[in-house]
């Protein structure tokens, strides 16, 4: 019995296959007690602390923080009798000094691995599911691997039986057999009648890219069976079919045709913020379609002026100006819900949602209401440039009070944006298109855009939200008149 015990990552939540090491609460050399929390692990279900299974001294930590570890993998080794002097042969050679690196295979083999009790032996129970996993009631199910199968008695030598697929004559890439798009659910036979097949078989056919209409069923009443589909799929592979384009287009996917992207960084932050906002602040969204022909012409005139010659002038600038002027008329929209009070702000830190390679970020122009139009233009351009180059600082992204999301650059008309946490209004600015529009009693081709305003209904009632949106629209419909009237 070895005094070194290795602890394997257990299945922490009914059918999970992996967990991410969030934080080690102990380090190599630490003396630990039974049930002392040693590591924080996050699974698909929960972030939990794992208590030590044995008292002793931490001998090795096998995975650093931030790594994702499969269930059953050793994560920590504990010397259960550190007072008994130095360790004997294999372990000591692998561990020359106090601070231990990842142990060699030899040292791992020398330690006693706690049996993964409770784990269902793969391949024995539960049918194979798509993606090489075993079907279970809850969770993703354990992966089945040929290597873990117990060898069977009988004619087939154990080695050959355990040998994985490459030994088979024709390697069959799973993604290859795309013959024709399956007309899911409506597949018809060559003779025109409806195809008989059970839903799981239809699903299989869809997954394998087999057109049910091309098959002749061998099941009851001529229905198509699982075997028919699989046969068609493998037969198709054997034939000389040009599938190179299909194969390359999905080349980054694994054999199970699924790609797993770790959720971290900006994506994680965005997800957290959006769900928090969506489920705490009751949003409503209103839309307004505006004829912005005059505003576009005003922009052209602005661009033509000498002092604006080398400034990038985009429709976003006018929208920003419209928002800032409208906030002056309705200060309540520039506020924060703080539980038992509403914080109304005299300054506008105007956020601009920007799509970057890192993901969505929302830097803001500080105190934008005090800037001249030229200063505003320079700030907006600087903000976007910095964001695109990935150099936006945390300070630029914090403290926003009101946001514009320029979804128009993606060529869409509008959206129902979700409030950034702590803000009470966000404006979606859609694409500016030439559309038929009634102008002075006649249908004309005019430049038209749609504005979408989401606001926090706890603070902003429909009336206030509508007036605010209406003012933005009025400005964009006739900027010069609005400027004269409001300032």
């Amino acid at each position, binding site marked *: 019995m070895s005094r070194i015990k290795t602890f394997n990552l*257990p299945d922490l939540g*009914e059918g999970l296959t992996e967990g991410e090491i969030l934080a080690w609460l102990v380090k190599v050399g630490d003396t630990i007690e039974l049930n002392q929390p040693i590591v924080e692990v996050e699974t698909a*279900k929960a972030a939990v602390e*794992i*208590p030590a299974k044995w008292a002793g001294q931490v001998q090795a930590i096998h995975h650093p923080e931030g790594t994702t570890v499969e269930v059953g993998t050793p994560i920590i080794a504990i010397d259960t009798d550190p007072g008994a002097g130095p360790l004997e042969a294999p372990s000591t050679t692998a561990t020359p000094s106090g601070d231990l690196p990842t142990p060699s295979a030899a040292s791992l083999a020398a330690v006693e691995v*706690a049996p993964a009790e*409770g784990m269902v032996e793969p391949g024995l129970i539960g049918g194979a599911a798509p993606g090489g996993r075993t079907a279970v009631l809850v969770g993703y199910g354990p992966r089945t691997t040929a290597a873990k199968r117990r060898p069977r*008695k*009988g004619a087939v030598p*154990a080695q050959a039986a355990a040998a994985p697929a490459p030994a088979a004559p024709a390697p069959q890439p799973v993604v290859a057999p795309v013959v024709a798009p399956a007309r899911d659910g409506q597949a018809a036979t060559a003779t025109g009648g409806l195809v008989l097949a059970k839903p799981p078989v239809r699903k299989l056919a869809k997954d394998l890219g087999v057109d049910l209409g091309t098959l002749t069923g061998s099941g009851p009443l001529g229905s198509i069976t699982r075997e028919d589909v699989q046969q068609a799929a493998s037969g198709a592979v054997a034939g000389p079919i040009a599938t190179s384009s299909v194969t390359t287009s999905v080349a980054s996917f694994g054999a199970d045709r699924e790609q797993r992207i770790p959720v971290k960084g900006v994506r994680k932050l965005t997800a957290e913020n959006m769900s928090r906002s969506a489920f705490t602040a009751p949003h409503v969204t209103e839309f307004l379609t505006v004829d912005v022909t005059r505003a576009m012409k005003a922009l052209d005139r602005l661009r033509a002026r000498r002092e604006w010659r080398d400034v990038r002038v985009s429709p976003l600038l006018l929208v920003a100006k419209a928002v800032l002027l409208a906030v002056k008329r309705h200060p309540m929209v520039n506020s924060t819900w703080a539980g038992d009070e509403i914080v109304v702000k005299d300054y506008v830190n105007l956020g601009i949602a920007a799509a970057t390679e890192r993901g969505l970020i929302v830097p803001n122009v500080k105190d934008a209401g005090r800037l001249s139009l030229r200063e505003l233009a320079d700030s907006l351009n600087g903000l976007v440039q910095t964001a695109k180059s990935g150099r936006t600082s945390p300070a630029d992204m914090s403290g926003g009070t009101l946001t514009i999301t320029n979804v128009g650059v993606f060529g869409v008309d509008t959206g129902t944006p979700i409030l950034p946490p702590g803000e009470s209004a966000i404006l979606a600015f859609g694409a500016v298109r030439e559309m038929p529009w009634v102008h002075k009693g006649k249908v004309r081709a005019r430049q038209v855009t749609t504005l979408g305003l989401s606001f926090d209904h706890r603070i902003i009632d429909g009336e206030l939200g509508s007036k605010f949106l209406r003012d933005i629209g009025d400005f964009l419909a006739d900027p010069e008149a609005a400027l004269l009237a409001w300032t």
Partner: protein
Amino acid sequence: MAKGDPGGTTRSRRPAPRSKKGAAGNPELVQLLTPDGERIDSATGPDGTEYRVDFTDEEYRGLYRDLVMVRKLDAEATALQRQGELGLWASLLGQEAAQVGSGRALRSQDMAFPTYREHGVLYCRGIDPIMPLGLFRGVDQGGWDPNEFKFNMYTIVIGAQTLHATGYAMGITMDGKIGTDDGEAAIAYFGDGATSQGDVNEAFVWASVFNAPLVFFCQNNQYAISEPLERQTRVPLYQRAAGFGFPGVRVDGNDVLASYAVTRTALDNSRHGQGPSLIEAYTYRMGAHTTSDDPTRYRIASEVESWQAKDPITRVKAFLEKQQIADAAFFAEVDEQARRESVHLRERVLNMPNPEPVTMFDNVYPNGSPLLDEQRATFNRYMESFEGSAH
């Protein structure tokens, strides 16, 4: 309403209303021991029933010991799950008083129908605490004899046991075992989430119209997994009983004395032929729903902290100290016993034998069946086809 409530402590400690017309409202809570450990002589329920307890010092100490033991063994089971030794565990952390109070209120002839979280009641019924661990380790189906201990198997299906209990209680009446001090009664445990189930409401109807000797004991721990109480009901749960035609009472579920008093009274009423009643033990699940759950995703830390101040064990300890019923040596001895028994529990769990796969055919029918024998033979042949198999 608490009579003799010292300085209004009870009232001020009541949970704040969670919404204007929400479930919690301003509940009348039967309480005999405040969170500060102050004893209240008696408390009156909504129907005028007066609740009091009269324990000896030894009995007070016994209740404290139960609470500590139950919490420690539960914590050990949670640790064992984290270490891969149990598939799942549903912790009772925070609900010890409701379980020990009601569990100790049962008389030996009373039958209990638990959910999968009643480890405290199980302990009070004298069942070896290892029993549920075999179930959650997946090596047996539960293992205790429900008839011997008058404690049914854990029921995983939410609320189903309330119907089983109703049927059992109707049987008590048909057997004529009510109407005296020796009469029998049944108690059905369930949670606040189960009150939204059809089964529970059907059980209310049947128990009511058949005047079944049954106590519905609802541990309202505020969450149906992640769904908070105010999204489950518009009225305080105990008030639902009125609509079904039997009395309902809300008790401080973190007060072991009040939980005992209310349950004992309700059971005695049932055994004397007065029909069913509903007890809402107002408590809080301090931990996760099960080890597969992460409560930080749906509730805030300040809420958990506010309930920490109402801990069921702290208040008993404070009471014992103030009244000089127990000294430091007693508390140390109880802690040591709990530690010893939890280590013992751990050792026994680690040494539980894995059942042979073929044992799944055992105990399906009392006298076997030809079809099952055939399946067993086929399965044996399959197992023997593996190399190194002992078969």
